[in-house]
């Protein structure tokens, strides 16, 4: 038991990874059981994450040296508050999406691929978990690369023209991005001689002054490298195609979780390697601030003109990623807390919306937002959850989105930059402009003789949607516990 407790951080990465490769063989033999095994593996990960989070909440920072090689030589896993939050979010949300995918997959991807889909899913998940808890830069690069490959696999699994093309574009740009990241890691290794984030940071404080140009180059390489993968505004061109043409459970994990882990890694590198002060004074902060503002407006405007529901949701992701970047480049503690909170709330909202889109497609086969009239009576549960997520996107009080908008507004006041409040309000209005027509149509434009009926989708598809909607409401009504935890995470990073 003692030994197991020590191994817990390692097992949360390794169990999904091992099960992923076992499933690849198992799928040839018994395809229909793959989903249950995958759910068991992720449920184990969720339980361990919960135990680890309890330990972190008690004030401990968990260190684990992989296979006994201690810190500067071996790979070190560190679970601090940010890592624990992401662990819980990643495992919890992907458990919910897996539950949804059990039934929905059969309608969306070729039957013989349904078993191997879970291999890709678990591979992506374990690499994401590794990315948020690793403390080693090269290990981070490997995890980034595995996540990128797994995510492309999740898109291409549909086996259609559009998704194949979108995933090739995603793969090419993601590889370009990880090339930039690896180059930046090379620069850091060259000047510090270390790969462990804590040691690099300690060395960098001493040599930073000697290489101002190299620091500048490293920072911009990291911004471009992880920015491509996190879909920072002008680099988002791969996202709408990839996220809208994927199967709906893939869209949910890609939009809700995959783009976030890159932001978390970026945050880690900026705040823990370079240090908060350096980031705060660098020009890179103003660049990200500008790009995030453009993302918020541009993403919303692009979303407004899309008629395909999933494409509209994908462009909305571009805008919401802008919120997260805006929050952390404001450089005030409220701003960063709001950014981290938005990572959670946006995951809930976008997963809820994409899963609802998947359920609507499952029952009615409709994809266009103009064809949704009367849907509020045919699928009351799904549309109720959709409405909750839409209201939260707009930022109505009592829903999760309001809390982040409030946090961002406080952050911009703290940064003496009240113009961003105008931006936030404007973007809220734009969100209303492209989400409310859908809701309005579903409830109020039906023909006369509709009667209320229950959703005709399997119950395993309804439960995930409802859980996510309840999550949004919970975050909107009782945000204080999460906010306290995130404030602790931020105070550890920015000192």
């Amino acid at each position, binding site marked *: 038991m003692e030994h197991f407790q020590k191994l817990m951080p390692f097992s949360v990465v390794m169990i999904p990874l091992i099960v992923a490769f076992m499933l690849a063989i198992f799928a040839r033999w018994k395809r229909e059981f793959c989903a249950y095994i995958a759910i068991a593996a992720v449920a184990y990960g969720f339980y361990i994450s919960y135990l680890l989070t309890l330990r972190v909440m008690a004030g401990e920072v968990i260190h684990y040296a992989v296979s006994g090689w201690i810190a500067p030589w071996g790979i070190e896993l560190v679970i601090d508050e940010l890592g624990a939050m992401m662990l819980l979010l990643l495992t919890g949300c992907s458990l919910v999406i897996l539950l949804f995918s059990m039934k929905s997959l059969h309608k969306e991807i070729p039957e013989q691929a349904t078993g191997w889909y879970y291999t890709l899913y678990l591979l992506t998940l374990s690499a994401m978990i590794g990315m948020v808890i690793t403390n080693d830069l*090269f290990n981070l690069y490997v995890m980034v690369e595995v996540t990128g490959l797994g995510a492309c696999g999740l898109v*291409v699994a549909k086996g259609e023209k559009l998704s*194949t093309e979108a995933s*090739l574009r995603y793969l*090419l740009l993601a*590889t370009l991005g990880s*090339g930039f990241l690896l*180059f930046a890691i090379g620069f850091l*290794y060259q000047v510090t001689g270390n790969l462990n984030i804590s040691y690099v940071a300690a060395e960098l404080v001493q040599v930073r002054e000697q290489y101002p140009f190299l620091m500048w180059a490293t920072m911009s390489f990291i911004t471009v490298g992880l920015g491509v993968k996190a879909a920072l505004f002008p680099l988002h061109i791969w996202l709408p195609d990839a996220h809208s043409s994927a199967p709906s459970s893939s869209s949910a994990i890609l939009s809700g979780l995959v783009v976030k882990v890159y932001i978390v890694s970026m945050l880690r590198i900026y705040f823990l390697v370079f240090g908060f002060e350096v980031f705060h004074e660098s020009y890179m902060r103003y660049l990200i601030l500008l790009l995030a503002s453009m993302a918020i407006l541009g993403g919303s405007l692009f979303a407004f003109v899309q008629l395909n529901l999933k494409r509209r949701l994908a462009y909305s992701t571009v805008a919401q990623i802008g919120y997260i970047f805006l929050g952390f480049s404001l450089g005030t503690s409220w701003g960063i807390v709001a950014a981290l909170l938005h990572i959670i709330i946006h995951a809930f909202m976008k997963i809820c919306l994409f899963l609802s889109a998947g359920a609507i497609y499952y029952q009615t086969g409709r994809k266009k937002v103009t064809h949704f009239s009367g849907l509020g009576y045919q699928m009351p549960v799904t549309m109720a959850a959709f409405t909750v997520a839409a209201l939260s996107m707009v930022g109505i009080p009592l829903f999760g989105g309001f809390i982040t908008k409030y946090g961002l507004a406080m952050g911009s006041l703290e940064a003496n930059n009240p113009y961003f409040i105008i931006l936030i309000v404007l973007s809220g209005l734009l969100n209303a402009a492209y989400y409310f027509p859908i809701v309005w149509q579903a409830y109020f434009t039906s023909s006369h003789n509709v009667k209320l009926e229950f959703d005709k989708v399997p119950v395993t598809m309804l439960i995930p949607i409802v859980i996510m909607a309840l999550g949004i409401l919970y975050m909107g009504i009782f945000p204080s516990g999460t906010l306290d935890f995130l404030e602790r995470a931020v105070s550890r990073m920015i000192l």
Partner: protein
Amino acid sequence: MELSRLLLNYPYFISIILFCLGCLCILTQHNLVKKVIGINIMETSIFLFFIAVGNIDGGVAPIYDPALPADVIYINPLTSTLMLTGIVVSFSVTAFALAIIVKLYQFYGTIYAQDIMRMR
């Protein structure tokens, strides 16, 4: 003085040039296979950079040999080891990209990005 420093550190200079060439290749070529070749050029330039970082002038291969004098300098093996992982990653990305290109060729009958965009 600046030029002499550049000449002294020529491996870094070459790796940067190759990196830029690779990026240009990925972004501007219309032939999808050439884009994949661009990825390989880019990643190889990074391998060159890392190995140049680990190299020491006059160093020997990092294998302990009692026959060598005690003050011999071994080069840094870590960067070469890291690049083994890098090569594996690059290999798997290439394989995956080529597999997708084969699939696209089956769908569209062409591997030119422009034609595929037109046929959509």
